Structure formats: structure tokens, C-alpha cells
């Protein structure tokens, strides 16, 4: 109940904001009858109506995980974001090994297999991508072994 209502509310707000920003779209002198604003506004309106339906007639709430699992999910999210930033400056191997180990540990909390998984995946995938598929990956940051 509550989760659907909350989600409906978020969608409603987003849809209204979306419509509002659609009204700000610049139009050019070359104008077709519909123009660049109408379709986004239509989409926003349909979303807003559906969100209202969800608020009025919510489904039963799903089973949300407990606080600890949420913590694990949040850590995974942070790690993935950090990985996205780290890939360029730190090369492929180190960030991949660390990220894969942490993800593996979050799925099955045993430290040693997780570390081996991370290291194995990082080196295995590097070899696969670099030599079999010929992608231009950088293994280590420049200057580390120079």
C-alpha cells in the first residue's frame, strides 16, 4: 500500500516537473503543427494520470529487505559509482578486482573466495577483452611501473 502510494507521489511530482520543463522548450521559427512541446507534455500528462490511479488504488506492498540488506545494497551502489569514476584514472585491473570482490562478498559473505573471485575475474576478463576481443583497455595507471 504505502510503497505504491509513495512511488505514485514521486512519479506525479516528476511528471509535473517534466511538463513544467517541457513548456520551457525553445521553439524555432521552422514550426510544424505539433511542435517540440506537445508530445513531451502528453507523455507527462499520461504519467501523471497513471500516478494518480496508483495513489488511489495501490497494490499491496512488496517485501522490502531489512536494514542490513539495504545497507549491503547501498554499499554495492556506492562501489559501482566509485568504479565508474575509477576506471579511467586507475586502469582496468585494480578497480575491477576491488569492485568484483566487494560485489561477490555482498552476494555470499565469505572473504577469501570473494577476493579470489575478484582477482580472477579482473585478470581473466582483462585477458579476454584485451587479447581475444582486442578492446583497447589500459591495465594499470600510466606511470605506475615506469
Amino acid at each position, binding site marked *: 500500500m504505502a510503497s505504491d502510494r509513495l512511488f505514485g507521489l514521486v512519479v506525479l511530482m516528476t511528471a509535473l516537473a517534466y511538463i513544467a520543463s517541457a513548456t520551457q522548450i525553445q521553439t524555432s521559427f521552422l514550426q510544424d503543427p505539433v511542435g517540440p512541446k506537445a508530445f513531451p507534455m502528453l*507523455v507527462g500528462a*499520461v504519467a501523471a494520470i497513471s500516478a494518480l490511479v496508483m495513489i488511489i488504488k495501490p497494490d499491496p506492498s512488496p517485501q522490502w529487505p531489512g536494514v542490513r540488506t539495504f545497507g549491503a545494497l547501498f554499499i554495492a551502489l556506492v562501489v559501482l559509482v566509485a568504479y565508474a569514476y575509477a576506471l579511467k584514472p586507475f586502469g582496468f585491473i585494480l578497480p575491477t578486482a576491488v569492485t568484483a570482490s566487494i560485489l561477490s562478498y555482498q*552476494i555470499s559473505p565469505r572473504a577469501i573466495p570473494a577476493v579470489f573471485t575478484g582477482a580472477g575475474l579482473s585478470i581473466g576478463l582483462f585477458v579476454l577483452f584485451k587479447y581475444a576481443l582486442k578492446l583497447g583497455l589500459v591495465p594499470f595507471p600510466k606511470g605506475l611501473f615506469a
Partner: protein
Amino acid sequence: MDIMSNLALGFSIALSPYTLMLAVVGCFLGTIIGALPGLGPSNGVAILIPITFTLGLDATSALVLMTSVYYGAMYGGRISSILLNIPGDEPALMTTLDGYPMAKQGRAGDALVLSGVASFVGAFLATIGLLIMAPWLAQVAYLFGPAEYFALYLLAFCTLGGVASNNQAKAAIASCLGLGIAMIGVDDNSGLPRLTGGNMHLADGIDFLVAIVGLFAIAEVFFFIEGHGKNSSIGVKLEKVVVPWRDIWLVKWTMLRASLLGFVAGILPGAGASLGSFLAYMSEKSIAGKEGGFGTGVAKGVAAPESGNNAAAGGALVPMLTLGVPGSGTTAVLLALLMTLNITPGPTLFTDRPEVVWGLIASLLIANVVLLLMNVPLVKFFVRILMVPAWILLPGVTMISFVGIYSLSGSYFDLLLMVAFGALGYVLRKLDVPTVPVILGILLGGHMEDALRRAMVLSDGDALYLFSSPIAIGFWIAAVLGFVAPMFLRGVLAKPQRVSD
């Protein structure tokens, strides 16, 4: 005959050693992808697309590889359904209902071979159907103007929302989410940016591959973290594998009926393989009646959903190739592949690029035979691969997704977007909001708006033009029916729960 000469052209392409090799590799990868729980056809094909792209395959080769993966995944899904009682992918859910009980009776080998043969029959008949239907539908599609296309896109969203999900409002929100995202970027007509919030990274729009990989592959990781990999339990043992000729003969009519039903379900825009296997199973169950013993591990219950599911997989290619409207989640991903390769599906594809279409159809026929050969004698090998634990598989999938998306654009912004889509996918699926309409919206949003705007240019702004032809009116009626009717049929169409041991 026309079809024969076209097929000859197709086979001349498909039988080249290189294409043949791609088909075999695709079948092999596809079966593995389908078999592994957590990797289904849609996310499997999605993570492979960027890699294919960087390999620099030409259009025909890339398409042959990916459709072989697609067909292969449909075969592979049954393996974990039968042995672990975990559907390897969503359409294989119905196979657990009789496949797992049959395996528990010590007939795992029989169930695997039988479902493999049923898959072959379904996929084979559907490919024949495809090669007859598709050119014909392509002819009809020449009659479509912008008004008809607009109505057709609407129909796809409505049937997807109505038939394939449990709550219309949620499906509509998902479609709008996708359509809304598709609007971001530079407007083709005026050349001015829309809804980018001034962010330079968004000026090109959001790449659908980023969204697909995020929603399908990254979201899966979050689900496995939530479940702590509990889903990777060990199921029943596979003993000797022999061909159960008697059972195969027994289910011959079941396979035919299920294939026909699945094919039709697949053609419906937006319905897809899950609906195909569901309808096939339910209709066979009612034909067999109470004495049929469905749910206790009978041969018909194993054959019906597999024929239906594979036939629907072939059927879903018909609207994707002829109209550019995908019939399922995975064909939406294949459509993304076509768009990335700069191929516009639709009637002109058949006249402009016959080598792509007929090469594809011929390789599907070949892939199907390869898959039968692979899946019956080699089934033990795939069973061994199933034992890869989730704590190795899922981090691997994530890393491959990152490399794939990174190799497309080399921008960390796309990676961040992908993670964001992953988190979004987790929340959406938690709330039972379907994610396939989001993908369809991102893929088709631009085309849908374009159709509307061109229709209005033609009619000088008269909205009634949208209802001006019988074809368009038919689509509108079907769209409304497809969206509304399931509300009243919920009781009948309710999906049965999985066997809980």
C-alpha cells in the same frame, strides 16, 4: 517460387564458414546464457551488443550472432527450470510446473530431451511461419502512413501494458518513463535541445544500450545481493540421458498446437515469449482435463510450454523485422542492435537489404538444428555450467557490462547512468512495475513522436487524421481492447505460482 529463391540467397550467405561459425558460437553462448539463472535472453543479448559492436562485425554477421544467442537462450532456459526449479529466464517459468516434478521422479534426462525436442519443433515451425508471414506483412506495411504507425506504436504499448503486466497504471507509468527519456536530447525537427537541463552529456540523448544494460543486467546484481545468492541451490541429479521416443510420439499434437498458439502470441506486438508459453501450457492443461495430471510431471506439461515459448520467440521477430515494432523484451533489445548498426527495420528492409533478412532467416533454420544437436547430446555439459555459483557469475556480468558500455563511448557519464538505471530497475521490479515498456519507450519514443508530427503536417493539424484509415482505426480499437480487456480477465489470466517444492 519467390520464397525459394529468397531462401537460396539466404542460405548462400548463412552457409559461408564464417557465418556458420558465428551461428554455432551464438547458439553455444545463448544456451549458457539461458541456462544460468540471473542471465536471461534480454540481459544476455544486451551485454553482448556493445561487445559485438566493438568487434566490428558487419550487419548480417552481428544479426546472425545475436539471433542465435536469442534462440539459444530460449532453449537454455529450460535446463535450470527442470533441474533446479528456478526458471533460467522468465518464459521458462511455465516449464518448472511439470519439468521439475518430472525430474524429481528421476526422469530429469527424459524431461531435458523432451523439452529440447519440443523447443526444436516450436522454433522450427515458427521460423517457417516467419519466412511465410514476414514478406507478406512487409507488403501490407507499405500501406502504413504516419497515422497508422502512430496507432501501431500505441497498440504495442497498450498490449504490453495490458497483457504482460498485472497493473495497467504501472505499465502506463513504465511506458511514459521510457517515452519521456526518449525525448531528452536535441529535437530532430527544430535542432534545439530539449529537457537536457543544460547538461552537455545529455545533448545526444540517452543511449538505449545504457538503459537496457542498466535495467536488465545491473538490476539483477542488486536482486542477488538482496537474496544473498540463496537462489543458487543445488537441484536434482541428472542420471543417464536417453531419448524417450515414446513420450515424444505421445506429445506430437501438443507440440503442434502449442507452437501455433505461441507463434500467434509472439506476433502480437508487446506480448512475447512469456505469454506464448503461458497460453500454450494453460490451453493444453484444459484440453487434457483433470485426468491429464498437469503439474505432477507429465510429458505434455513439459512439451507444451517449451514449444509455445520457442514458437513465440520466432513469432516475435515478425513485427520486429517488418514493422520495427518488437514483440517482446528481447526483440526490443535486438531492435536496439539494428538501430545501432544503422539498419531501419520495416518493409523497406526486405527490398533494400534482402541479404540481411534472408541471411538471418536461413541462419535461424541452421541455428535451430545446431541447437537441437547441442542440447540433446551435450546437455550434460550445460548442466555442469549451471553449477557456476552466483557469487562468481554476477560480479562477472557486472564487469562485462561496464566494459561493454565503456567501450561504446569511453565516458564515465554513461557508466553512471547505467548504474542509475540499475538502481531504478531494482526499485521498479520490486514494485511490480514492468521494465520492458521502459525499454520500448526509449527505443520507439522518437519514432512515435515523429509519426505524430508527420501525420499532423500532412493533415495540417487536424487530429481526426489519426483515425482516417480503416487500418488505423483497427489499431486504435485493438489498442483500447488490449489495454482494457485484461482488467476483466485478471481472474482467468492470473499467472500460476511456481511449485513450492
